[in-house]
């Protein structure tokens, strides 16, 4: 059983890596050659939203200016102390001019540039922008996974899912970040900068994918033993696909009761997991009602496959040391039933 | 290399208590403690701002009587301390000893008053952040009065044994600076812990 369970973490399979359709705006930027071939599904350098693009452009501007300042400063040092060794010293006046130009004027220009761009871009990226944001999602940081609660206009929860955030393309979704344990930080670099989920606070983050695609994000605030493997996926899809997805997520489990459900309940999985429409209503772990619809398990650590599911259940801490779920080693037949059932939770 | 003597130190004062580096040192200690108090009081207001009600629902602000007694006793003890120093400057060992002893006594009385007041607190340190900060600020000051009292008690013993002379009174001078601080810092604490909840 164990050998089947032995899982490989990662994102090797091609269908997991959806190529960005966004024209690489940055390829024209200076120094892009440094990074060619490194575009990723979790990278601030491959913006898939207006917010991330603005910041990426800002990064390139700042980087280019920094290189320029660096070269000038080091150049002056090299020339002054090296090449002109023992020749003419700077007069008091030229020295003063040098210090004022390099040490006062240049920084002041830099400060103004940083300030103006920072406020302008900050305003853009942190603001609601278009009035009447349609979609509000509560993103709850857990140790060490994410709970996602889709709300309707009245603020009632429509659907609960985990670790896979679906968003309609071209719409600005409002993410409300919560935590009832330690501080986490929600970071999907292709879409938006990060914001912390802090107990006692309700921080807000806007996400607005410009293109269809699948990206990965990761918790960015150190939150304990498995901060490392606290990832999540973001899926941006057209509005109608999104609606269909949300409707499914809102429904009870679609799988008919099967022997696997009894195994699930007998093993005590229901003490921690909810499968809507069954007696399983635990709150400690991710909602599994539509587990099979998700691309990954264990917080974007493993692709969602039968083998990985089996590995996760039977050898949880090999996959994710410290995860707050015990391993279970059921009878082989029971495990098959259980996996059949879990795979039917579309 | 030849040496040119520009300063002759033979006749310079060796016992100058009011310009002694230790005097500056104690000032440094006072600056640190003042920064600690400022941080504590800022934390008090920060926590207050984070909470809808401060003190929390159902908790009464601390009573004014005992703190006010302390507010009288501590300056009084500073006055006797100052008076003792005057005596010491003149070489009057008796005035020094009496003054210092009076200060210690007054401060001990202040500690007693403080203890009564602590016993009356409506909030415990472990049920709300309000109680925690109240107790900690109080405890911080209490500890400082205790250490000032202990240190000064040693000075008093030395004074009665006739150790201090006008040249050799650094201990008194330094102890007095610290004493002023411990007494004086009670005023902001008083205003924040006891008056502010009634005004805000």
């Amino acid at each position, binding site marked *: 059983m164990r050998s089947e369970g032995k899982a490989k973490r990662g994102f090797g399979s091609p269908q997991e890596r959806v190529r960005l359709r966004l024209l690489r705006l940055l390829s024209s930027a200076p120094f892009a050659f440094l990074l060619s071939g490194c575009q990723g599904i979790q990278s601030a350098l491959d913006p898939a939203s207006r917010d991330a693009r603005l910041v990426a452009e*800002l990064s390139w501007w700042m980087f280019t200016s920094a290189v320029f300042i660096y070269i000038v400063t080091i150049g002056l040092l090299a020339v002054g102390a090296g090449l002109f060794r023992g020749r003419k010293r*700077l007069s008091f006046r030229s020295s003063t001019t040098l210090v004022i130009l390099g040490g006062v004027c240049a920084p002041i220009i830099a400060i103004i540039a940083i300030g103006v761009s920072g406020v302008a*871009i900050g305003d853009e990226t942190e603001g609601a922008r278009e009035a009447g944001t349609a979609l509000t999602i509560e993103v709850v940081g857990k140790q060490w996974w994410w709970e996602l609660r889709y709300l309707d206009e009245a603020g009632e929860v429509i659907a609960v899912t985990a670790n896979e955030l679906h968003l309609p393309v071209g719409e600005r979704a409002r993410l409300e970040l919560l935590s009832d344990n330690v501080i986490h930080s929600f970071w999907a670099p292709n879409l938006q900068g990060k914001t912390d989920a802090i107990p006692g606070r309700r921080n807000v983050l806007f996400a607005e994918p410009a293109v269809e695609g699948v990206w990965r994000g990761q918790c960015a605030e150190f939150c304990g033993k498995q901060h490392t493997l606290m990832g999540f996926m973001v899926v941006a899809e057209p509005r109608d696909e999104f609606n269909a997805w949300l409707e499914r997520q809102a429904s009870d489990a679609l799988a008919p009761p099967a022997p696997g459900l009894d195994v699930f309940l007998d093993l005590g999985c229901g003490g921690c997991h909810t499968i809507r429409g069954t007696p399983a209503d635990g709150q400690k772990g991710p909602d599994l009602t539509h587990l099979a619809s998700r691309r990954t398990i264990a917080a974007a650590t493993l692709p969602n496959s039968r083998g990985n599911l089996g590995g996760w259940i039977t050898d949880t801490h090999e996959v994710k040391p410290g995860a707050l779920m015990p391993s279970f080693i059921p009878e082989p037949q029971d495990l098959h039933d259980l996996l059949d059932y879990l795979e039917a939770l579309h | 290399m030849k040496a040119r003597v520009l*300063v002759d130190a033979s006749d310079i004062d060796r016992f100058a208590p009011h310009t*002694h580096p230790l005097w500056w040192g104690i000032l440094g200690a006072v600056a640190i403690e003042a920064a*600690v108090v400022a941080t504590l009081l800022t934390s008090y207001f920060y926590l207050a701002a984070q909470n809808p009600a401060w003190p929390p629902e159902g908790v009464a602000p601390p009573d004014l009587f005992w703190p006010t007694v302390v507010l009288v006793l501590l300056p009084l003890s500073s006055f006797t301390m100052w008076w003792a120093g005057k005596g010491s400057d003149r070489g009057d060992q008796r005035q020094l000893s009496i003054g210092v002893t009076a200060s210690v006594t007054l401060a001990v009385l202040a500690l007693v008053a403080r203890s009564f007041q602590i016993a009356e607190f409506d909030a415990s340190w472990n049920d709300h952040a309000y109680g925690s*900060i109240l107790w900690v600020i109080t405890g911080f000051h209490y500890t400082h009065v205790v250490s000032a009292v*202990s240190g000064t008690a040693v000075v008093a013993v030395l004074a009665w044994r006739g150790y201090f002379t006008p040249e050799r009174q650094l201990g008194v001078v330094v102890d007095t600076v610290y004493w002023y601080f411990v007494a004086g810092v009670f005023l902001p604490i008083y205003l924040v812990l006891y008056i502010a909840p009634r005004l805000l």
Partner: protein
Amino acid sequence: MTAVGIETSGHDPALEPSSYGHEAAVGREAFERIERTWRSPAGFVGWFTQVNHSAIGLRFIVTAFVFFILSGLLGLAMRLQLAMPLNEMLSPEAYNQIMTVHGTAMMFLFAIPAMEGVAIYVAPLMVGARDMAFPRLNAFGYYVYLIGGSAFFLSLALGMAPDAGWFNYVPLANKTFSEGYGVDIWTTMITFIELSALTAAVELIVTIMKLRAPGMSLDRMPIFVWAVLVMSFMILFAMPSVMVASAFLMMDRLVDTQFFIVENGGSPLLWQHLFWFFGHPEVYIILVPALGIVTSIVVTFSGRPLFGYTALVLAITGIGMVSFGLWVHHMYTTGLPFMGRSFFMAASSMIAIPSGVQVYCWIATLWGGKVRFATPMLWVLAFFGVFIAGGLTGVMVASVPFDRQVHDSYFVVAHFHYVLMGGAVFPLMGAIYYWFPKATGRMLSERLGIGSCLTVFVGFNITFFPMHILGLQGMPRRVYTYVDGLGWGNMNLLATFGAFLLALGFALTLFNVVRSLRHGAVAPDNPWGGSTLEWATASPPLNCNFIQQPVVESRRPMWDWREAGSRTVVAGLSEDRRETMVTTLLDARPQSVMVLPGPTPWPFVSAVAASFGFIGLIFSPWFFPIGFFAVFATMVFWFWPRHPWRKK
């Protein structure tokens, strides 16, 4: 004195006398009597009673570098673990402990104490004092540091080290989420270091303000001394904040206070504000003395007076003051109002002005000079190359929208290693090469030094430059591994390779130091032709520092003396008692003479009592009163007047 920036004379160290004739100045008999008065007791027991600043300063430096090597090796362990995706060399528990101990120890046990050590060793010499104002307090501070630091590393060996990161955020550090003693050990260790840093700060301030040699008015003080003064004031006002924070946390864990418990009115952000109100100045506490070191070396090796003395003093003081208004730039992602963050964005980038002024003052000083590229100067060049890059990324992360992308990512890791290594470690290495001859009487090997500097410089950039890119590519910090297929593998492997090169470079210096202690060429009093007073004493310094305390008439006493062919001194200090001049605050006119205490074991005993109290606090609150009165008792013995002085 000539106008600022105009060359006075070229300084050729070959023209320096190899000894300034210390014995001849007062005669053999007086010389020996003075040296006996100031001698530190030898032997194992004697070691615990030494109080001279040169002994204590050296101990601080050596201990700090031992901790540097240990934490550096932990850095290597992290690099090994991160060399490839899904590596299983370290468990998450082990990694988190190693990461926390590396960060905490580098900051609290290496960088600050090393700077304090250099300050304690050099500053009294530079101001021409015979010792520090409170030698016993100095010793006390050292023992507290030694005990606290050793206990901290011991906890790692025992596998119970803290594992919540070097800034130890709550609620993760609360007892609900961090059981065991790890975090308690962290708070306790912080308390030790606060105590030791505060004692050092107070006595450095008093020493610099009151014990300067006659004539050394404030505007004649070497920049290094200014830097130490600013550092000490920063410690004075920054440490209390973390002191309060760690006390709150200790109490939350120990006696159930509710400072950080949201359910009962507490606030996790209170911790962040308190920590960073200290934490930001802290990084400049590390930087500022390093700037002083850089200035000393630049002046000496360009052989000409500093350009822009006043500008530099203002810049350093400005950095010190402004740094107290920037802390929120570590909290850009906590959801504070954007308006407020914009203010801190402006304030943070403003630090570029004083930093830039300094950089360009140094360039102006070096410009066209007969710069001697000896090893200390090479380290300063490495400092330029690395620190400026780190400073520029610092200005980048000061931008709110940019920081929201790179905060808590490897970009920040790259930023702070550039500024910490560039701004602190490189100058410290320069300081070692610069003052080693003074402290030991031996020269370090130049060839090994050049090799070490080059290797470190190259290794450093290979290690940390890729981290900028990794951060932008989405790699968060404090992860013990990363999943496959995100494209981070190669850069990480490169970084790991660089780290070993880096270690090799440091190993060369270590070897150099150990070898030169015995085999190095004998150093003259002023091997580099320096202009400040530490070069006026013997190498290694006399027990009394100066057999006759110097009198100062300009910013560059050594160069003046050389030109005049004679030096200016104080006479009339006792030969049988530890005496040093006390001067006025601003213009250093003689005011009185301070009689310093001699060797004593009480600071050690007192430090042990305090440690007993602090460490006990991890287990029970009762150790608070116990420790309090134990320390009080030892203090009474410490200060109890045993030899009533008589006026001479």
